[in-house]
């Protein structure tokens, strides 16, 4: 799929149709916030963008002793739910350990299905890629 000059996916009629399907299914099912770069497989199918701090890599240190969110104390922490559900998943269990890259905010409101199909959601800044390679080498070095 083509992308506009500013890196945002183009919004043709077909794209809008897919977006509509995605919105009406994912929003009620996963409380999806349409970040456009879905990582539900590494969060036990709990949308990480429901976390008030937008955490993509696990719970913050402020989770209350009852497992509720410190910002919204009347509900369970997004990551407490994510952890519990990930244990019940038949696959992707170890995807909880993935280091998820920073959010590309240009994709907010676009279709993650299309971004997945075109691999647009895999695009990361050059510096992120370089450091990932270094981290992999280190991991390899110690095992």
């Amino acid at each position, binding site marked *: 799929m083509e992308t506009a000059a500013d890196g945002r996916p183009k919004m043709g009629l077909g794209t809008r149709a897919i977006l509509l399907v995605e919105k009406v299914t994912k929003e009620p099912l996963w409380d999806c916030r349409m970040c456009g770069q879905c990582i539900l497989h590494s969060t036990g199918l709990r949308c990480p963008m429901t976390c008030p*701090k937008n955490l993509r890599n696990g719970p913050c240190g402020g*989770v209350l*002793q009852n497992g509720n969110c410190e910002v919204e104390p009347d509900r369970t922490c997004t990551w407490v739910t994510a952890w519990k559900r990930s244990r019940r998943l038949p696959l992707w269990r170890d995807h909880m350990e993935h280091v998820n890259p920073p959010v590309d905010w240009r994709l907010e409101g676009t279709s993650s299905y299309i971004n997945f199909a075109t691999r647009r959601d895999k695009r990361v800044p050059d*510096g992120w890629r370089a450091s990932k390679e270094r981290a992999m080498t280190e991991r390899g070095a*110690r095992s």
Partner: protein
Amino acid sequence: MGVHPPGFITGGYNSRLEALLRAGEFVVTAELQAQDGGDPEAVRADAAGLVGYVDAANCTDNSAAHAHLSAIAAGHLAADAGLEPIVQFTCRDRNRIALQSDLLGAAALGGRNVLLLTGDDVSAGDHPETRAIFDIDSLHLMRIARTMRDEGTYLSGRKLSSPPSIFIGAAENPFAPPHHVRAPRLAKKVDAGAEFAQLQLCFNVPRLRIFMEELGELGVLDRCFVLVSVYIARSVRGIRYMRDVVPGIDVPDEVMARFDAVADAPRERQTQEGIAFALETIAAVREIPGIRGVHLISINGQAEIRRVVERAGLLPRPIAAV
């Protein structure tokens, strides 16, 4: 692998704190009082009072979402007074551009240690109506800091003229749910670039033991220096505040009962109990394999910090060759 994490390419030490940890010393850090004014002397005086008692001191970044004198400025002033700073960064108030800019600024002004955090939400502070940023999370920031130092580039890939010399730290809270996630999460942070960790306040030593065992099994203790925070309560009210108001703090009932027993005693007796508890906690955590230092926190209690360091037998502080 020993105690030397890989990926250290600058040849020397980034900071005094790093030199001490790599030399195998049991380190002591403390938290400086955040200042609500523009007087440099206030920071210098606070820092000067800890010189010789702690190896480095944390400069908080608008803690609990309350504005204070900036952490980078405080770190610079502390260094001025002869105390090495650990400059804290949260992701709450700045996007990735500002954070990278400030990492360079901190390093240029003597902030050789950085502690990279997500940060409390704005709802915890006195400006709850403001917009929280949370563009990236703390783990992203660790990898970005490590990229800047070791790859010599910004996140974008654009080259730096000189990489910042910084020792990179993370926080973790072993005492908050979901407990099983805590050790793997610190492992993730170490993979992302953290070289030392300061854990949340410990009132629950058995829970800390389990966490440290898990870290050992994950191979994290060979790659990360772990310090645990110890609270020096100056009053029973102070410890109740920690339990009831600060999110993520676990004060077990038996610990609270011990303080409740002196709740009606004079203030000095309450402080005495706080100091005794801190000393017992320090003695207990020193026995746990992998604990490489303590981080002391006492609200407006600099004299108490000095007393605890002295009575815990942690004086004199070692001299670091950087």
